[in-house]
């Protein structure tokens, strides 16, 4: 494990991803998702919306980080908000 040069932030990051995946699996087992059409141009399942949300979150972070002087926590806030909107209405 030593060579993987873990740091606390990255460990938290991967733990969060793993927790989200586990949570989604549990949710799926409890109440299976139905494919539906929201404001996105394609019909999506819950998992699809999560993926779109996470991918766009990555791009939001990169954009804020690379091209604006704004704080990264702001990017995180926007991303979580956007993920919530996607999951609810996407």
């Amino acid at each position, binding site marked *: 494990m030593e*060579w*993987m040069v873990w740091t606390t932030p990255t460990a938290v990051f991967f733990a969060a991803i793993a927790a989200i995946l586990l949570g989604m*699996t549990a949710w*799926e*087992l409890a109440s299976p998702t139905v494919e539906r059409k929201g404001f996105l141009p394609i019909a999506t*399942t819950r*998992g*699809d919306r999560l*993926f779109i949300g996470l991918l766009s979150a990555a791009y939001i972070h990169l954009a804020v980080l690379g091209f604006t002087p704004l704080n990264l926590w702001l990017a995180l806030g926007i991303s979580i908000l956007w993920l919530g909107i996607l999951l609810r209405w996407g």
Partner: protein
Amino acid sequence: MTRSMPTTPDAVRKQAAAADARRRREARPVSRQWRRRGLMAAYILFVLLPIYWLLNMSFQSNSEILGALTLWPQDFTLEHYTRILTDSSWYMGYVNSIAYVVMNMLISISVALPAAYAFSRYRFIGDKHLFFWLLTNLMAPPAVFLLPYFQLYYTVGLFDTHVAVALAHCLFNIPLAVWILEGFMSGVPKEIDETAFIDGYSFPRFFVKIFIPMISSGIGVTLFFLFMFSWVELLLASTLTSTGAQPIGSVMTQTKGASGIDWGTLSAAGVLTILPGIIVVYFVRNHIAKGFALGRT
């Protein structure tokens, strides 16, 4: 259809024109066939010219190569081939490459077969996302993974072994195998599985005795692609090995000596890397020619 004789000059002209058009339509396939052959020949010429040039170089002595441009070997020599086939540091490169390619093919196909079956027959939690995740591994550029791989295999003590390269190539070969096999399996009607289970076949017995023979040409095609992508990849293969399992591709860099590049030996080594590929295509040509549409359209 009866053909009445024309009565007016206008009708005569019209009928003549129609007959003419018909004749031209019937004649077209012949000229078209020649055009097809011509175009095909032109393309094959384009494919073969660089390879011919490599072959040409490999039979020339280095002084002839650097002396004057000759369209075919004036002074036919096998010295480069003899050198490669008698020097163990050279021919072991081929042995190493073939060893890890074969290992990779065996590992990949044996884990990809059940996985592809699961994807083609069942729905389960996360199936679509898992499939997409597999595909993303197909696009993972080896350059990204070079250093972690080096560290990983060094740590588990596999550095400079054939297994290391075989496992590393699983990164893109297993997803590819699952993808291709899934297409073939989806083409097999599900009723066959159901009948077999009713007849009392257990799953493993059904899979080995009935299902695998049914998709044998799919397996052939998959093995061909596995061979291809493992054989041609060198960035990972040369990073994960030093001397014990060095692939031919990195042995070839030896030809860059202090006195410039040894073109003749480089060409001969290149020619020898093409041969295994030709043998493999020769074996699977009928499976490919039989046709595969990959999945149900």
